[in-house]
């Protein structure tokens, strides 16, 4: 165990750092953290300095008294509880829906959601501490949780999930007052750290599950224009929060084109960073017939 901490084997991404330099090997990670913290800061300068660029929270916000943004998932729950919101909220939800159709559904998770900072930290610590072993819950569980939240809304006639949703609890807690919400968040953190690898975001969170449904149809995708150059270092699998999405496209399983169309890819771009061979790149879901490197002709057009 100590050996891992000290020297070998090298941590995932070491090869990429050697090949591209530290900055290039962390480009998307840095941009992503800037986005997550930046968005949080935009919200926070309101209550902190009375600088009201954005009002509200992730469930609904109003930017510069002009742009309404609403979380389509919470609106869906409201509808399930048989309440039709006013135009303002519906417009906001439509805008957000369109936005994520463009940038990738679970881009919400990796570029916006504040809980992701927490769960990423738990994962980082898990690796640092060399914690092995993980409980087994299947990844599709999150869709059951998603379904459950809608049923709970319909049956109770209220947006029941909002009572314990760690995502909105954290965001609301930071902007308004946190109260005992920290206990819920601590539970999520400890669960991810000690019980299960990528436990919350990768297996349970219904918010992520909802955005992955948008992701099924979204435009921005991870492409693998140089998948033939892959040297099986497995670094991308090691850093990816949803490693199961990589294999089909990387290994051309069943003629999968060189683009990750799996709904649960979060468009975090970590795979781009850590790959020393530059296999991955951001692109769109279309034009999957990139010039195949060294005879990978089976890359079929979509």
């Amino acid at each position, binding site marked *: 165990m100590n050996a891992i901490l000290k020297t070998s084997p090298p941590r995932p991404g070491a090869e990429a750092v050697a090949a591209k330099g530290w900055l290039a090997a962390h480009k998307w990670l840095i941009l992503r953290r800037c986005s997550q913290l930046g968005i949080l800061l935009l919200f926070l300068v*309101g209550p902190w300095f009375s600088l009201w660029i954005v*009002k*509200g*929270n992730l*469930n*609904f*916000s*109003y930017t510069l008294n002009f742009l*309404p943004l*609403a*979380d389509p998932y*919470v*609106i869906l729950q*409201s509808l399930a*509880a*048989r*309440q039709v*919101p*006013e135009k*303002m*909220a519906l417009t*906001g939800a439509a805008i957000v829906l369109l936005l994520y159709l463009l940038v990738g559904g679970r881009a919400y998770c990796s570029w916006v959601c504040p809980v992701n900072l927490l769960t990423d930290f738990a994962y980082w610590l898990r690796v640092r501490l060399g914690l092995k072993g993980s409980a*087994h*819950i*299947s990844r*599709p*569980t999150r869709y*059951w*949780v998603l*379904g*459950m*939240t809608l*049923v*709970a*809304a319909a*049956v*109770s*006639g*209220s*947006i*029941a*999930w*909002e*009572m*314990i949703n760690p995502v*909105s*609890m954290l965001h*609301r807690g930071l*902007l*308004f*007052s*946190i*109260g*005992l*919400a920290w206990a*819920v968040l601590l539970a999520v953190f400890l669960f991810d750290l000690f019980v299960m690898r990528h436990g919350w975001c990768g297996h349970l969170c219904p918010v992520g599950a909802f955005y992955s449904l948008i992701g099924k149809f979204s435009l921005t995708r991870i492409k693998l224009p140089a998948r033939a150059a892959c040297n099986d270092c497995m670094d991308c699998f090691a850093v990816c929060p949803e490693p*199961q999405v990589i*294999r089909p496209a990387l290994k051309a*399983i*069943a003629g999968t084109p060189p683009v990750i169309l799996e709904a649960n890819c979060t468009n975090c771009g970590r795979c781009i960073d850590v790959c020393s061979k530059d296999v991955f790149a951001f692109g769109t879901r279309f034009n999957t017939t990139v010039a195949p490197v060294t005879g990978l002709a089976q890359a079929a057009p979509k």
Partner: protein
Amino acid sequence: MDNETKPSAAARRQFLADTARMACGVGLLGLGVGLYAQHAKALPPAAIRPPGALPEAGFSAACIRCGMCVRDCPFDILHLAKPEEPMSTGTPYFVARQLPCEMCEDIPCVKACPTGALDHSLKDINKSKMGLAVLVDHETCLNFLGLRCDICYRVCPVIDKAITLDPQSNARTGKHTLFIPTVHSDHCTGCGKCEKACPTEVASIKVLPLYMAKGQLSSHYRLGWVEKEKAGGSLVAPEVEHKYNMPEGMQYEHGKGLSGSSGAVPPAPTPAAPVALPKALQGSKL
């Protein structure tokens, strides 16, 4: 994706077991969330919703806990419920005794609400029904004790409609008037200014949620005098004139009070002599 080969019987069993486990777990979680949500549906009495809030059942379905109302309230009276507070987490409320609603004419909180959880059809703040003030403690209200505190009446933004001072005889002194603060539910908005201003250590008048504050007559009840007016005449035929059974030589006339018919008034049996009769008993001569 990974199962390109046919799963073995053992793998299928494992899959079924996993699915069952997952369904049970998620089901239990759902039950927990549902019960928790149900539990939080009744609002605690000290928490008052902002103006225009839908009735509680609709509100917890419509409010998306965004806090826009909180942000746009110029007096900063609103809070979003924390998870440990016994109501739907993240929904807005205020506590009148801390900071009451100032009843802004343009109702910015309602305007800010993107969902209609605060009903946009509320245009006149005087028509809002956040709750209802109730003079909860007759033993501590200073006016009930015979003083002229009157503060709740004076601070009421809908003075003389939502709250009036109704004179009543002071039975303790036998010669003074109590001015009883009386709230009228058809005009009280539940803003809570009276509760905030009440000088007793613990407020003697409190705003309560409507469901707690308001009684309701049985549906078959009819108010005789209202029916009579509606019908334009007595509904009881023949109308019997009311007669008072008075001791000999005494008369009581509605609106005029007690009088002796012939000469001196004989001493009354009670210590309260006719002159000292409580004013309220003397009819409308006041």
